[in-house]
């Protein structure tokens, strides 16, 4: 058996979390460096995954597979394996985490007055913050790699707990509501996050049990193995009744739609992103939420092709509502972080749309979108976080003319924003374009409506920039310091990546495309043939 690369990639941050948490309270800085080191080691393993992954057309669909028995009684195995989509998502996760750690370097330091209090000697928020981030990373990697559905579910659910503590335990320093009000808001957001996702997860649990019973019925032994189920379905051994398949699909889809989040179960996201610190907000939207859309591709379409097709009109409608609704609400926000959260909802609408139009451009675009959205939002949100930490307010109206006092900050903010509005030359443009092309080739009306999302995106990003960065300098901002070296070191690579993927997406599409073809064949779909009649008639 070869080196278990996927396990190593997940285990590294898990061990890092434990080590970081064990650092004594006085050694805060050491804890940060340890966390950073472990996250960089994870990047190394992720790079090895990318290099080892075979992108040839004839290569296995799931590679780097590992399989060990775990809970035989439940029919659960420790089965890992990645297709191109999984590789891309693991790479995104691994790459983003060091930046988040860098961006949140000082976010979790105890306040000066707390430092002395004897009661807090064993309260180590800094160590906890970085340990929790690494724990989330480990669980996210495992859920991207799991090919056993039960295994996936376990990490899908378990990651809620560290996430919950990150949201509820750490927030921006000051705000208009004062210390107490903010703590209340924060724990409200954390509880809302947890309950929404827990309900989704429990619904999925019921569907999971249903799936097990169905497979046990038809295959003699119940199984959760994705590959076993796909094979059995291919050979006709497993043939779910239409109504069973639809119920199971719904159970899975609801869980993923809440995680993604799709309108109308999106309302936890603005609270969670608004109240948490910028790195945690990025962690939510760029990493954790991607598990939802990723799972739609891998599990909903793979396991329940007919039901997915049956649900397509509804899902596309919900996705369109998300695109427009998210964009409109982003326009109306007074709070910078909530604006970015609503923008994310709009973008998740695009991703879900791309997945469910069932064309190779759509799904390929959606996968690229998951990556690019992660990078673009990270850049925008982290710079916004730096800005907020300087002024102590999230309100857009508290800012103005920042580009005069902090030009670098304003410039990076602008680039992040342009990425978010999918400017050609940045990564998101290509993915959004692909999604729209894929949509047009099958659902023209949906494509047209989705295009309105682009216009609105330009509006909310540019208006945000105009209000905060241009115009006369607001009182109190005259001495706003520009980006520090640490902050620049975080933002610059992200921006470079954003532009690189906008100009040269080839490496990414090479990895992703075979997997998309496989997914499409799961659902028995082919791209609609281009309409050539009119062209020929015109010649």
């Amino acid at each position: 058996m070869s080196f278990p690369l996927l396990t190593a990639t997940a285990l590294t941050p898990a061990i890092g979390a434990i080590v970081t948490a064990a650092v004594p309270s006085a050694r805060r800085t050491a804890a940060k460096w340890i966390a950073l080191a472990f996250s960089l080691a994870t990047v190394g393993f992720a790079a090895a995954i990318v290099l080892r992954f075979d992108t040839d057309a004839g290569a296995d669909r799931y590679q780097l597979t590992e399989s060990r028995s775990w809970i035989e009684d439940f029919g659960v195995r420790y089965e890992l394996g990645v297709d191109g989509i999984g590789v891309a998502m693991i790479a995104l996760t691994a790459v983003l985490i060091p930046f988040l750690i860098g961006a949140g370097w000082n976010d979790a330091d105890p306040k000066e007055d707390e430092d002395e209090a004897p009661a807090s000697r064993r309260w180590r928020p800094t160590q906890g913050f970085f340990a929790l981030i690494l724990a989330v990373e480990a669980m996210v990697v495992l859920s991207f790699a799991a090919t056993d559905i039960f295994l996936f579910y376990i990490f899908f659910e378990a990651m809620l707990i560290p996430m919950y503590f990150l949201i509820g335990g750490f927030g921006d320093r000051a705000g208009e509501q004062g210390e107490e009000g903010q703590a209340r808001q924060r724990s409200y957001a954390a509880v809302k996050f947890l309950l929404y996702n827990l309900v989704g997860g429990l619904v999925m649990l019921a569907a999971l049990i249903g799936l097990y019973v169905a497979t046990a019925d038809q295959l003699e032994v119940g199984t959760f193995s994705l590959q076993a189920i796909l094979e059995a379905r291919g050979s006709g051994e497993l043939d779910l009744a239409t109504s069973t398949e639809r119920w199971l699909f719904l159970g899975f889809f609801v869980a993923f739609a809440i995680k993604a989040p799709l309108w109308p179960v999106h309302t936890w996201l603005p609270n969670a992103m608004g109240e948490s610190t910028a790195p945690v907000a990025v962690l939510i939207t760029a990493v954790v939420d991607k598990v939802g859309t990723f799972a739609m591709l891998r599990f909903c379409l793979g396991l329940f092709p007919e039901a997915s097709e049956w649900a397509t009109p509804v899902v596309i409608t919900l996705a369109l509502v998300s695109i427009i609704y998210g964009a409109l609400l982003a326009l109306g926000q007074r709070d910078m972080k909530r604006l970015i959260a609503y923008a994310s909802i709009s973008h998740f609408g695009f991703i879900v749309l791309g997945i469910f139009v069932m064309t190779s451009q759509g799904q390929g675009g959606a996968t690229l979108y998951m990556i690019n959205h992660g990078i673009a939002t990270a850049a925008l949100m982290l710079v916004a976080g730096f800005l907020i930490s300087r002024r102590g307010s999230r309100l857009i109206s508290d800012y103005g003319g920042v580009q005069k006092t902090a030009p670098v900050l304003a410039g990076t903010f602008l680039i992040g924003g342009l990425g978010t509005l999918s400017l050609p030359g940045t990564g998101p443009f290509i993915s959004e374009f692909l999604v729209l092309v894929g949509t047009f080739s099958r659902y023209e009306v949906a494509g047209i409506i989705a295009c309105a999302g682009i216009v609105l995106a330009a509006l909310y990003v540019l208006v945000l920039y105009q209000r905060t960065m241009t115009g006369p300098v607001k009182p109190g901002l005259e001495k706003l310091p520009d980006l520090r070296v640490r902050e620049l070191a975080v933002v610059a690579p992200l921006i470079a990546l954003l532009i690189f993927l906008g100009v040269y997406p080839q490496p990414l599409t090479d990895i992703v495309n075979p997997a998309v073809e496989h997914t499409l064949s799961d659902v028995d779909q082919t791209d609609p043939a281009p309409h050539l009649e009119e062209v020929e008639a015109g010649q």
Partner: protein
Amino acid sequence: MNPGELQAPVIEWAALSPSLIVFGAAIIGVLIEAFAPRSVRYTAEVVLGALALVSAFAAVVVLASDGHATSEAQVAGMGSLAVDGPALFLQGVILLVGLVGVFLFAERRLEPAAHGAAVDSFAAQPAAVPGGPAEREAVKAGHTTTEIFPLLLFAIGGMLLFPMANDLLVLFIALEVLSLPLYLLCALARRRRLLSQEAALKYFLLGAFASAFLLFGIAMLYGYAGTVSYSGIADVVSGDPASVNPGLAATMGNDALLLIGGAMITMGLLFKVGAVPFHMWTPDVYQGAPTPVTGFMAAATKVAAFGALLRLLYVVLPGLRWDWEPVLWGVAIASMVAGAVIAITQTDVKRLLAYSSIAHAGFILAGVVAVTEDGVSSVLFYLAAYSFVTLGAFAVVTLVRDAGGEATHLSKWAGLGRRSPLLAAVFALFLLAFAGIPLTSGFSGKFAVFRAAADAGAMGLVIVGVLASAVAAFFYVRVIVLMFFSEPKADGPSVVIPSPLTMSVVALAAAVTVVLGVAPQFFLDLASDAGMFVR
């Protein structure tokens, strides 16, 4: 056999050794109370209790490894006791819980030392009027109630018999043997004695009612079948009686007697389990009883009572499956929903855990309703997982104290995570296990039970269970929010550093919670090997 002829009973001493050891130790404990000087009683009782439980557990392990759980399963004691897989598994769990219970009972570092003597959570002189001169004198003299240890051993002995009982009279005797010491123990709290006595009285009165129902049901089943032996009744139910008792020819085979009698016995057992609508005693008793007793009772009674219920339904009444299944569906749904919903409004940790135990009774019933071997083993596994989480949670409750004793009001727990992060984290682990979050024992148990139910076609129960879990998650999470995200109050409680006794209880419970969540295979195997009842 002539009625006049006496037959010497055949007793399988070895097969019954676990309960015999515990009962023997309990009697020795009473003798120690009577004859040993006051100064050595505490040490003697603790050592005796721990030794007895450990050796009884060893006996269970030996019996199980001799195949008594599977191929060698037998009916012992003239047909009155069954030594089989479920019985041995549950006995093992009860003995471990009991051992841990002895540790909790023996803890003497929590209360501030009174008049130079270390004291435990139990009243100095229970017979004295609360606040009266006799009590003051007893406290001044530094008396402690070491009688708790024999009482505990008797209760454990009864619990060991309960899931073994293979005829209705032994069932009743076991019920009384386990209940009477518990009624007493509930009344023995050192602090808040009136509340404790009220709890004991309520428990006693309602428990007496339940016993009466059970006994009446036994009488009716005897009228129906002419025998109190489980297999005898099962034979009559399936229309194949071994012999007809001429004195009962008029009533034998009367279905009305069977249905009413079966329902009454089930009622008596559901009372002990604490399922809706027989749950009324749970919150008051859990709150009033001394917390070590609550923890022990919540864990062990549930294990024993579910064992007895399983045997009754699977051995005696499988022929009536179509009659009791819908009823238990209703009871399971009502327990899950009522337990989860009412718990939301609770403001006291112990009451909260009480309502959560009601909801969990509902989850376990979902596995009982499955009526498959999988159903039995999933219930066994759930009971093992649940009992340790419960013990751990109550052990933590004993540690959070202020001047008035245990600070059980939830508002006092605000900010506990900042004062003692480790303890709060462990308590959060227990709460997450209650909520059934993956990688904890609660999830494995819940999944096992729900899967068994779904396999048996009870998807409706699974869906209700899943929704109730979501509601339940809300109040577990609320406590976590309170501990970690609220600012600590200035006059908040402090966490007492306990002796290694309680420390080991909490550590063991946390370890079991994690192990059963991450690597449950071994224990699932144990439970599924133990899935068959002997007839």
